[in-house]
């Protein structure tokens, strides 16, 4: 479904991605783990078109998207939940959701689509008239995911959904991600620092180090991998 080959992305003179190859099949949950500054968010931003790849190809459903502007990529069916949620804090929760829908169909199916979001995150229904900025971190993340789902994506890009959120809510959000994948048949590409949780959830995973993919495999294989345990999973490094 998504095929990334030899992608390189720069910030000015600094190279963030050094020839990344990643493949995501339809219906999968694929996760990308790596430390701070490895280039995880850059890769997501490059897929969604906010950052541009200087070389390499990105194919989505056999269509080149590496040179498309972000709004056209969203219209093709790739929605992004950006890092740090980036909800519109002075707009109401409902406006936030409507903004997610506007790309897809100018909000014509808002009423039906918003019900799906309520099924995923019932708490948003009670918060509809509240300003986005008054929600808790976890609720904001739910809103960000819900907002992205309003565009009826075929594929959802999630950037660190567990960042700065109470552990109890992290579980809820991961369950929701699984539901989105299984019930709504949305392909998931998940970037996480919480490697254990992400690998448990994912069908397959990639490890990104300094802008290069160094390891790939099924989620279970990567969980058992000694190097990964040492580098990313708690306790592994002490032995």
């Amino acid at each position, binding site marked *: 479904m998504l095929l990334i080959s030899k992608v390189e992305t720069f910030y000015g003179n600094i190279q963030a991605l050094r020839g990344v190859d990643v493949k995501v099949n339809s219906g999968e949950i694929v996760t990308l783990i790596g430390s701070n500054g490895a280039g995880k968010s850059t890769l997501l931003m490059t897929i969604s078109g906010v950052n541009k790849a200087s070389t390499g190809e990105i194919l989505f459903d056999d269509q080149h998207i590496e040179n498309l502007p*972000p*709004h056209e990529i969203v219209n093709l069916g790739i929605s992004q939940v950006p890092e740090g949620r980036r909800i519109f804090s002075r707009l*109401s929760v409902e406006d936030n959701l409507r903004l*997610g829908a506007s790309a897809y169909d100018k909000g014509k199916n808002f009423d039906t689509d918003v019900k799906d979001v309520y099924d995923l995150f019932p708490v948003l229904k009670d918060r509809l008239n509240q300003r986005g900025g008054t929600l808790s971190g976890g609720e904001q993340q739910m809103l960000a995911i819900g907002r992205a789902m309003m565009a009826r994506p075929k594929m959802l890009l999630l950037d660190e959904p567990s960042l700065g959120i109470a552990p109890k809510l992290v579980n809820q959000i991961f369950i929701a991600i699984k539901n989105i994948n299984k019930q709504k048949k949305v392909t998931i590409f998940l970037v996480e620092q919480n490697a254990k949780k992400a690998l448990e959830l994912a069908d397959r995973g990639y490890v990104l180090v300094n802008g290069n993919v160094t390891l790939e495999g099924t989620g279970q294989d990567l969980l058992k991998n000694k190097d990964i345990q040492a580098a990313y999973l708690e306790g592994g490094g002490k032995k």
Partner: protein
Amino acid sequence: MRKNFLVSSIKDSLFTGLIALALFGPIVGLRTVAKNEVLVVSPKWFIVLVIVIVCALGRFLTNLYIYNRDQKYGIQSTVGKSITKFLDTKGTQIALSAIIFSVIFPFLPFTDRYLMDIAIMMLTYIMLGWGLNIVIGLAGLLDLGYVAFYAVGAYSYALFAIHFGWSFWICLPIAGIFAAMFGVLLGFPVLRLRGDYLAIVTLAFGEMIRILLLNWYQLTKGPDGLTGIPRPSFFGLPFKSFPEEGEQTFHTFFGLEYSPMQRIIFLYYLILVLALITNLFTIKIRRLPIGRAWEALREDEIACKSLGVNPRNTKLTAFAIGAMFGGFAGSFFATRQAFISPESFTFIESAIIVAIVVLGGMGSQTGVVLATVFLIGLIEVFRDFESYRMIAFGGAMVLIMIFRPRGILATRKPTITLHKKEVIK
């Protein structure tokens, strides 16, 4: 803590006194007088001393009573809260009564020509403020050159009306379209700019338009200005005291005595309707996808991109639509004055409009009205004391910034409320 605070605020006010001395010392204190055909400096140190003491004392008092964090509810928050609460609960009634008042205003017993002129001027500024509010308040693009669109509207109206003899109602939309085109023209080069940099470019754009008008003599008659701009007619019925043979005029058609007030009243209603259309448009568009996209763009551009909002088109439409209303106001200005010259479109006009929007509380429609009445009204009240007008104007801004640093009406109502009405805090 208490004592520390006192010491620090005394220090702070002494420092303010120093700044005031540095500023007013040369400006006020050193006055040049011509004596025996020679310029001599005659110092006015006493006045400087008074100003410095006033500044230091004022700073000390504001420190004690307004910025004092020990007082849980300072003047600042109580005044603000009561205003906001009042408008939250009675907002619709106030708006309605204001509209009704403006409709019957021309027929009130105390209304004279002078008051009507002020009212027309205020309404023009309110309309400009509402138009600029689309750009600044909704889309968050600080535009310091808004007067350029006002000028484009005025000149395109005047040129079309003079050279082609087209009526007001044809020229008005044309002027709006021209202004909108100039909005897009400004919008394109500044798409990547934000904040201060955007403000600088828009400021320069405003000056460019003025200088262009000043120097393109063949078209605009430069500093001489355009004269003889046709007055608007009442749907084809002109306002004339002596109609030509067989010509219907407003007063003959309605069988009235001719009075110059008739045209003034018509102009008043014209600008009232135009301003209300601007307001209605803004209120409505905030609920449409494009209006929501403007507000989202103001909040977070990256999030907008990742949601599939096209930032280029969104910004350009904001510039274009804001400019269009500026153009409408401009053509009204041209038809009212019957004479326009580049002097009417200087930077100070832009500054006043921006001040109205910012002091009103960015994005607040009612705030624009309050700020206009306050600022323009103040300028008018002090018209008899010519030399003190600017002091009053500056003082008013300082007071608003002290008591309502985020504008008179800083809190905005939610764009839409579902189910039941809840107050968003």
